[in-house]
């Protein structure tokens, strides 16, 4: 048994004009919540697309549960589920129909039961037979995540799961993610919100200018930069300050 759900080494990816990933390395342990933190355009979605076999890297390797994403995409897809940056739900179908559809594509038995259980768990039972186009943003996102849970995949990718949600919706999603991890699922999520990574993640990696510039638990990151300031009261640096400090140093070096 190996303990790594994800292993990424020297990952590089360019689009026609930009070199987005310039050698990305990280590992994610099974059963933990891993947050990939980066600003808009940092390359988070690009990494998720490579890991979920939607996009080929230029060089470097990535393995999911020991399967190489480039050479064994079918094995990779057996154990993962993706909730993309933009809601991957069918607006014209009802919530229930969406879930049943995914359950059938995963060749489960009792698709109706699977759908009902998830509807109940995500508080969508009342809206189950309404078209998704009538759902609020938060409901859509919940359905989206529910669809990713059909068939109980071992590893779930959530690309900016709370972007565009109101605070209430965000808290709902956080709760869901925590429950998932408690159930043993590995969660890989990306976020632009430092607070979100602080709230949820066991392990945080910061992606900046094509590389992982920091990687570790929140406590480890806090130890790195900057030391607690001694004033009248001692104040722990927030992740935001850590982030800014790291980026600031890089910028100084570059000049």
């Amino acid at each position, binding site marked *: 048994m190996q303990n790594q759900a994800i292993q990424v080494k020297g990952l590089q990816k360019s689009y026609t004009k930009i070199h987005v990933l310039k050698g990305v390395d990280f590992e994610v342990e099974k059963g933990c919540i891993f947050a990939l933190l980066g600003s808009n355009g940092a390359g988070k979605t690009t990494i998720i*697309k490579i890991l*979920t*076999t*939607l996009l080929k890297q230029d060089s470097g390797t990535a393995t999911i549960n020991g399967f190489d994403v480039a050479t064994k995409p*079918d094995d990779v*897809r*057996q154990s*993962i*589920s*993706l*909730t*993309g*940056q*933009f*809601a*991957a*739900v*069918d607006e*014209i*179908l009802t919530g229930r*129909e969406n879930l049943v*559809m*995914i359950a*059938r*594509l*995963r*060749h489960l038995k009792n698709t109706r039961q699977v759908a009902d259980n998830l509807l109940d768990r995500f508080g969508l039972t009342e809206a189950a037979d309404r*078209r998704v186009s009538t759902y609020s943003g938060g409901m859509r996102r919940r359905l*989206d995540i529910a*669809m*990713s849970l059909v068939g109980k995949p071992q590893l779930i990718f959530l690309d900016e799961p709370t972007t565009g949600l109101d605070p209430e919706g965000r808290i709902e999603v956080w709760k869901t993610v925590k429950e998932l991890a408690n159930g043993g699922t590995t969660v890989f999520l990306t976020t632009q919100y430092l607070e979100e990574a602080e709230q949820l993640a066991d392990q945080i990696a910061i992606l900046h200018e094509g590389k992982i510039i920091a990687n570790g638990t929140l406590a480890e990151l806090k130890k790195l930069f900057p030391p607690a300031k001694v004033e009248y009261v001692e104040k722990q640096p927030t992740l935001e300050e850590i982030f800014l400090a790291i980026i600031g140093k890089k910028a100084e070096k570059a000049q």
Partner: protein
Amino acid sequence: MNKHFFSDMGVMLGRSMRHIFRSLDTIITVTIMPIAFMLLFVYVFGGAIQTGTDNYVNYLLPGILLIAIASGIAYTAYRLFMDMQRGIFERFHSMPIARSIVLWGHVLTSLVSNAISVVVIILVALIMGFRSPAGVLSWLAVAGILALFTLALTWIAAIAGLSATSVDGAGAFSYPIIFLPFISSAFVPTRSMPPVVRAFAENQPVTSIVEAIRALLSNQPVGNELWVALAWCVGITLVAYLFAMKVYKKRV
């Protein structure tokens, strides 16, 4: 190809058929519009058109069916385009199902939904006085030609849907195709047309397809038209299929 290929395609078919039945716009365009054309031609222009037959509904039905199919495949392109735009496409592609299932689902949906609108239009034509002495074999041949025609246009639609950059662009390719039956023998015999138009009309695919179907439905000898019609359909299908697959591979 994995063992679930056909059941997965069935799931995709069920999904897009729901899209169709929940879209009033689609239903109106693919059945009500062709029926309105049929009413218009038969009851308004029909009296003035000399076709050499006494039953004009019999004469124009094949052309109406082709128009219905041509407007139907615009929606195939549209649905494919919308899927590509949305996250659902990436969800399907990151699932353990065949990569091409989404595309094949749309192709199957196109065949099934066009078959439904063809049947509805034929039923209305029957009410309007359409009669055919054709036997089962001829009807099967007609069904085969229409299915091939649908398939040919579906793969053209797939190219459009996969490569379009806007919703309007996805459907625009179908306008010239919808127009083709008007410059063919679908509504008036080509001999009434000026020479240049006539030359075009007689050598474009729709005329041979219309003539072949018309002959089959009226128990006349079909002759060469059938083979010309089949050659057009198969030829277009093959070329468009190869091209669509190339675009698809590039997109996924």
